């Protein structure tokens, strides 16, 4: 029997009134991956109500945005979700480019796609390892980090940083993609394919993992919609929602890739979505490597001091955890009037209270792992 919400919540109710207690999970807990606190009202091991308490590493990035020029805010964007820094920078840069109507050179766009997808793979690898840690498997994270290290080396060779890249600039890139990077990326794609098969054999097909994730933590399309959950969460609920397809940006319309989608709504579906996404990212990278043209990597005539036309602009990208949107409001001055960062983990976690009701503690933690939370992304 699998402890679904129905079966589990029915069980204790049959025995009359139960004593409940409050379990304070976190802010320092091995499964919280950072400083997330969850106040759990428990009946034995069954969760009656799990209320996430956030804000422990709130840094007020949005206020910082109002205090500095557009260009000076750029380093901040890498630090919101440090695991998919490329996507976040892309969204902010994209919003400003949209406002300024800057045409980004094609080479830069392709380079952005390649680096973004590499970043997505590296982010998913951290998630994969961390999820397995949540489930008590220690070894996979080290295998994943071995491969992730290769991505980080590539990106470090390209832009000099391993995590907080800050690689994109308004109208292009920080520096040009060199042949060494392109060659290294091609080699990496070849390297990762057999490794992904190894991941599948070692973990995905493992009966224990299947039992831990299948039918656990149902999050259906309707719940995703009401909470605004995106990314692998909504794709694991059978909705092929992907910003790369729904609101096409960059050169994604020129690339052929599938949006992985599983209709089971459970943690396993979310798991499989991410595993498939890694393969699709490899496909995207291969195509982009084939298509990348030569040419400039920065748009000409980008003014040094950006004064955006007054108005509000938004730009959304598909970050590793889902839809990341930057909404900027400009009043025509050289510093932003308002920068709004819509973080995917924030919305993905907001459904936790509803989704975890009646679950058993380890399952709730497995579900939390399948949401792939990055706490600084939630707190911003």
């Amino acid at each position, binding site marked *: 029997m699998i402890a679904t919400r129905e079966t589990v919540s029915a069980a204790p109710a049959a025995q009359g009134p139960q004593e409940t207690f409050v379990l304070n999970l976190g802010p320092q807990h091995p499964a919280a991956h950072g400083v997330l606190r969850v106040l759990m009202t428990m009946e034995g091991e069954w969760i009656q109500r799990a209320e996430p308490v956030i804000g422990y590493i709130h840094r007020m990035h949005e206020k910082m945005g109002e205090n500095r020029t557009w260009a000076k805010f750029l380093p901040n964007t890498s630090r919101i979700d440090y695991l998919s820094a490329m996507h976040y920078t892309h969204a902010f840069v994209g919003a400003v480019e949209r406002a300024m109507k800057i045409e980004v050179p094609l080479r830069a766009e392709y380079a952005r796609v390649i680096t973004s997808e590499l970043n997505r793979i590296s982010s998913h690898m951290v998630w994969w390892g961390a999820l397995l840690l949540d489930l008590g498997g220690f070894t996979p994270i*080290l295998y994943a980090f071995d491969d992730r290290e290769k991505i980080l080396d590539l990106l470090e060779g390209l832009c000099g940083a391993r995590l907080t890249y800050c690689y994109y600039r308004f109208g292009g890139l920080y520096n040009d993609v060199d042949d060494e990077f392109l060659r290294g990326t091609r080699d990496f794609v070849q390297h990762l394919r057999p490794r992904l098969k190894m991941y599948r054999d070692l973990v995905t097909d493992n009966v224990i993992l299947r039992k831990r994730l299948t039918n656990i933590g149902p999050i259906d399309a309707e719940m995703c919609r009401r909470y605004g959950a995106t990314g692998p969460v909504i794709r694991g609920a059978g909705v092929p929602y992907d910003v790369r397809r729904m609101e096409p940006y960059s050169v994604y319309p020129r690339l052929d890739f599938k949006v992985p989608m599983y209709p089971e709504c459970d943690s396993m579906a979310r798991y499989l979505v991410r595993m498939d996404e890694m393969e699709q990212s490899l496909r995207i990278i291969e195509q982009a490597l084939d298509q990348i043209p030569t040419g400039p990597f920065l748009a000409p005539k980008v003014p040094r001091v950006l004064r955006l036309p007054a108005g509000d602009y938004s730009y959304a990208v598909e970050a590793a955890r889902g839809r990341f949107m930057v909404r900027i409001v400009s009043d025509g001055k050289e510093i932003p009037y308002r920068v709004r960062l819509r973080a995917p983990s924030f919305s993905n976690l907001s459904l936790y209270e509803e989704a975890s009701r009646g679950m058993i503690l380890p399952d709730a933690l497995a579900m939390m792992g399948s949401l792939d939370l990055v706490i600084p992304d939630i707190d911003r």
Partner: protein
Amino acid sequence: MTFLSLEPIRVLLYLVGICAFVGANAAYLVLAERKGAGRIQRRPGPNEAGWAGWMQPLADGLKLLAKQIMVPPGTDSLLFRLAPLLVMAPPLMCLVTIPFGENVVARDLNLGLLLVFSFGSINVMALMLGGWASRNKYAIISAARVVSQNVAYEIPMLLVVITLLMMTGTMSLQEITAQQAGGFWHWNLFKLWVNPLMPVTFVIFFTCMLAETNRAPFDMAEAESELVAGAFTEYGGMGFGVFFMAEYANIVVGCCLATVLFLGGWQSPIGILSSGAWGLLWFFLKTYALILTVIWIRWTFPRTQFYSLLNLSWKILIPLSLATLLLTGAMMKLPLLWRALS
């Protein structure tokens, strides 16, 4: 020599020997575990203290000893302090009757197997007391888990052992070993003509042993990503160290038992060279092979879910072990029935 002169020496030897054996095993199995994990994860493991990290257990032990043992306010301080002792005692007791070699056994009781199992059950109580006395919610959840887990896994384990007992007809571990003399095809594991499901029986026994010793993938009691450290959450210093050592002592006992029951104990796999030191060699080879397998399993699999753990016991292992029990009975009694009929 008379009984009186021999007995105190024997007791002393046992006490010193077993304590040293358990201590050394616990210390160096931790190192083996960390080294093994390192190998599997393609890193060197502890390699700073001493040559290739050989002094690491000593360093760890000294560090643990130097730490203050905190008794959190509101705990049942007597039970809190008693639990680490209680958890260490059963594996020490169990080793009384394990035959390490032809003549190396502290006391060959004719109900040895029974002693092992009865003391093995106390282990649960110690963990439960430790968890309960801690006055910590994680520890209490863990204590509750330990009890139901152990209850669930004693049953298939005992059923499997009963199957073996039907074959051996004795509870004396020394005698069980003696019956398996003469090459590996005489070991209980390979006595397929008595019970073709013997390998399955061994797998069941091994699984139950993992569950009873709270080893991954059945480490529900510790489950550090869920329950922080489970029953040991509030323990620090040597209190925690003793729990840790007891876990390894239990593994040693479990693997020794598996060796004796299924793998011919100290009997050599080729039929000769079983006596004296050779016996010890064979015994430890087999035991440590099993222990390494336990470590290997831990670093390969994720933890099972609690109810699937119980499901595994009640829905798969118990029916299977009952089936093997029936089959063994039938296989043993059919020739008699045949003879009676003809």
